[in-house]
């Protein structure tokens, strides 16, 4: 560069500074991207300075050769392929937000099967549940379920007085239904079977009056109850 060699001369040195400023603006000057004043300054400098004019010419040659290259030609059928690709993306819903895309995917793939799938699932749950109940947890059948109500009949304990043997002239069993109160005492009785004998009735009555029962209970609470008593092996008076 000759302008560098001229730096010894002061006027030329000042001009060198101006030249470097002008040259740094060449790019913008080529595009017209600077103000009119700056463009005028560069233009007038180029008229005065041959070096810069030559340099600017080189820049313009580069620009011209680039322009002559022209824009790259798109490949054959580029537009058709671009449209096809855009169509495919639109079909896939790439332009939609995520939730809309998920909805689209659901509608196109799983929604037609949803009813069948849910029906099948429900049937499977019912079947599997029934089978697991049958095999996994068999029902234990209990025969003593009545104990749940906890009804206990009155039970004979002992006699308060020395038992007086009942004697009768007939060798038949005597069946008595006695009603027992909650304290274990007999408060009424009925002779269901046996000889109709007033003396026997007195004896049975005395026997029952001296008898102490364990009263009937419901859930452990004493209640009134009734008991069937059978007198057998009655001594028969000769």
């Amino acid at each position, binding site marked *: 560069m000759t302008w560098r060699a001229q730096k010894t001369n002061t006027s030329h040195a000042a001009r060198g500074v101006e030249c470097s400023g002008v040259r*740094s603006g*060449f*790019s*913008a000057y*080529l*595009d017209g*991207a600077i103000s009119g004043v700056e463009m005028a300054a560069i233009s007038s400098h180029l008229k005065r300075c041959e070096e810069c004019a030559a340099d600017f010419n*080189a*820049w313009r*040659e*580069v*620009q*011209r*050769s*680039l*322009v*002559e*290259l*022209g*824009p*790259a030609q798109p490949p054959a059928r580029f537009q058709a392929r671009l449209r096809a690709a855009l169509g495919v993306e639109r079909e896939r819903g790439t332009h939609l937000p995520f939730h809309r895309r998920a909805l689209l995917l659901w509608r196109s793939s799983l929604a037609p099967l949803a009813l069948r799938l849910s029906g099948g699932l429900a049937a499977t749950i019912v079947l599997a549940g029934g089978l697991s109940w049958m095999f996994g947890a068999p029902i234990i059948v209990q025969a003593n379920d009545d104990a749940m109500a906890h009804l206990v009949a009155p039970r004979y304990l002992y006699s308060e007085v020395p038992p007086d043997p009942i004697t009768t002239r007939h060798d038949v069993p005597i069946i008595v239904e006695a009603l027992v109160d909650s304290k274990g005492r007999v408060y009424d009785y009925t002779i269901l079977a046996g000889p109709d004998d007033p003396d026997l009735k007195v004896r049975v009555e005395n026997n029952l009056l001296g008898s102490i029962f364990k009263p009937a209970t419901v859930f452990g609470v004493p209640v009134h109850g009734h008991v069937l008593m059978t007198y057998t092996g009655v001594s028969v008076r000769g």
Partner: protein
Amino acid sequence: MADGLAARDASPYECAARAQLGERVVAALRTLPEAFREVVVLREIEGFGYEEIAEMLGVNLGTVKSRLTRGRASLREALRDDASAIRMSNSRPIENMQAVPR
């Protein structure tokens, strides 16, 4: 289009020279760093404005301007180095090459 115009008003020699220059320019463009090359191509060949280029590349306007300046300077250097290399091997064609763009 450019080929058609070139064929109409340029001699076969000029056409060949122009094609050769084109190849040289493409080769010189390839030596540029990617950041400079894309700005130079978008501005000089595709003809986009500074603002459009800045928006396309996602950089600010000042970056576009500086990249364009440096890209053009490097391209000029690359073409000049290329020309001097050819001149050293064979003097005649390069004189013609230089004559062609003017």
